[in-house]
């Protein structure tokens, strides 16, 4: 049951219902979406909300994901808050326009309900969203349904901040979160309205003031636009923690940091890094390890783009070992997060023992016992 009222309240919501609830509170004016497992229940829930008048919004039932992103781009440039959602092959199919939105900075919010790619498999891994880490989108990875709701609400405010003005992808693991119910605290509409002001377009298609968006651009122009995008990401490094902090103060959820550290980093020997639900699973491993006398912490990147270098380096300086668990592969090299963490360690001359594993592909279960065993092997 998805319901919101004037007071903050707790309900049992699936991850996808948490997305839909956050979207309803954010009041987008155009939603364009196409079904794909395991994202489908997000758009089903939202279309029901629109049909029943709970959400005053145009719901465009497009004929493909490519068109979902196309419509989202058009709607956003018409001057309204815009939302879409997808998974796996849907993300790949809209890929051309995911890049379009990223490189031309269209502030769309889109959850990606993580699912493996072909051969057909509907279960979670991060191969889909990781394939788009370079596409000019801010990327969040949620560990539980509460964080799904919190990050989705923050995503609108972050995407639409005039010093950022970029699309945001909120990634949540398929089925583990999307179809599993958990307690979620839902803020009131009044509080959300205070936190998230109405959409204020920075660029708008307006017959009174014509301009051409995305027109033929020479190398100098492309250079300027890419540099501006890089600047936008640099701005986001500063603004995202501020918005997280504002959210935390108002709703008591979500820390102010782009990374979450579970355990005592000052006494830990090893840091375990993993995204999304794998990060939460790793938290469970801490107790097992503690019983065996191993002092470990979980360093989970809540934000993957921008890559939270500063926070990460501050944390990893305090441990002597790190184990990075990736749920996707950059074929021909290694797990994406492992590659990026290694780069930071090298750049900052942090000489700690580095370990990496790839787990959980195609929805393969990864238990806290298994994670603990991997840590034990290293120690």
């Amino acid at each position, binding site marked *: 049951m998805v319901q919101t009222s004037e007071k903050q309240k707790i309900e049992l919501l699936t991850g996808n219902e948490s997305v839909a609830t956050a979207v309803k509170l954010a009041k987008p*004016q*155009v939603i*364009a979406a196409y079904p794909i497992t395991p994202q489908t229940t997000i758009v089903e829930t939202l279309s029901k909300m629109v049909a029943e008048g709970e959400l005053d919004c*145009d719901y*465009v*039932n*497009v*004929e*493909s994901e*490519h*068109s*979902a*992103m*196309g*419509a*989202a*781009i*058009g*709607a*956003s*440039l*018409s*001057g*309204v808050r*815009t939302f879409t959602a997808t998974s796996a092959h849907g993300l790949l199919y809209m890929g*051309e*326009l995911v890049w*379009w939105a990223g490189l031309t900075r269209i502030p769309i919010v889109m959850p990606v309900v993580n699912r493996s790619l072909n051969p057909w498999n509907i279960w979670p891994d991060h191969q889909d969203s990781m394939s788009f880490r370079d596409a000019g989108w801010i990327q969040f990875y949620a560990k539980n349904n509460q964080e799904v709701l919190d990050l989705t609400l923050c995503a609108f405010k972050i995407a639409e901040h005039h010093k950022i003005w970029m699309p945001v992808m909120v990634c949540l693991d398929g089925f583990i979160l999307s179809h599993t119910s958990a307690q979620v605290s839902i803020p009131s509409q009044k509080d959300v309205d205070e936190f998230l002001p109405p959409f204020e377009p920075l660029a708008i*298609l*307006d*017959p009174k*003031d*014509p*301009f*051409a*968006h*995305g*027109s*033929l*651009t*020479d190398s100098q*122009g492309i250079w300027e636009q890419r540099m501006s995008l890089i600047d936008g990401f640099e701005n986001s490094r500063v603004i995202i923690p501020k918005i997280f902090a504002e959210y935390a103060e108002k709703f008591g959820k979500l820390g102010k940091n782009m990374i979450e550290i579970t355990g005592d980093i000052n006494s830990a020997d090893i840091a375990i890094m993993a995204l999304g639900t794998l990060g939460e699973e790793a938290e469970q491993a801490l107790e097992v390890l503690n019983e065996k006398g191993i002092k470990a912490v979980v360093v989970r990147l809540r934000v993957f783009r921008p890559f939270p270098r500063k926070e990460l380096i501050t944390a990893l300086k305090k441990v002597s070992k790190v184990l990075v668990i990736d749920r996707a592969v950059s074929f021909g090299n290694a797990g994406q997060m492992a590659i990026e963490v290694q780069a930071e360690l090298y750049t900052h001359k942090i000489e700690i023992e580095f370990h990496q594993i790839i787990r959980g592909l195609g929805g393969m279960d990864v238990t806290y016992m298994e994670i603990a065993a991997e840590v034990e092997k290293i120690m």
Partner: protein
Amino acid sequence: MSIKIPQLLNRPDVLLRGNFACAGCGLSIAYRTTISALENPIVVIPACCASVIQSLHPNVTYNVPTLNIAFAAHASAASGISRGKKRRGEKVTTVVWTGDGGTYDIGVSTWSGAAERNEDILHCCYDNGFYSNTGAQRSGATPRGAVTTTTPTGKTEKRKSITRIMMAHDIPYIATASVGYPRDLYTKVKKAAQIEGYRFILIDAPCPTGWNSDPAITRELGRLAVQTGYFPLFEVENGKLTFSRRSERVRDPERRKPLEEYLSKQGRFKQMTSEAIKALSKDLQREWDLLARFE
């Protein structure tokens, strides 16, 4: 609706000087005639000649708001604009402006979806029967026998009937028009502008560069296409087809100018044998007969 010549002369200047169009470009005539007939247009342009002739960023020769978008995303982006502007309470005319590649081939899914939803969009396709922007490759709109850079000995398949496919969507308005008859085009655009929902206008737009024709005879080629029965002009309103006056006049093949007169003025048809011309002629008549069933 009767449009007077002074009305055509006093249109807003939608296409400014300094654009990159070739001499004798049919698209520029089509664009200027169409867009100048509209109130508060917002134009969505996918990959096509229209996306490159507008000049280099930050210069723009289109004097109307323009969204350049990926090849197969025109009608979806336009759907978003149309919906968003309605939400904002702004009255605009959302236009999809594509070449034949974007309409006949790669963009079918996006416009078919938008047409099925009956989005409030005016979809205009300037049709030169091939991929002009990338240097004259074959498209679904290329007629049988025409030489393109990917059909060097002439296309062996018939031209796709986009209007009949569009008719299957039961949208409120479909028309064909030609740059050879700008007043007819202007009138049809004005009429389409009064209708709400998905509207489609197919515009025959000669391309001297790709057709290997004299840039000075673009208008004449447009007229010959109609007079020889190569490009029939008609309107379809709520499922009922009406041939436009100039095509009604040549409904009887006997009253048409010889097809050779049209073909011989274009390098792309130079290699056609009389048999090939017969085959093309047969395609054209078949299309006429099929269209007539909807009268």
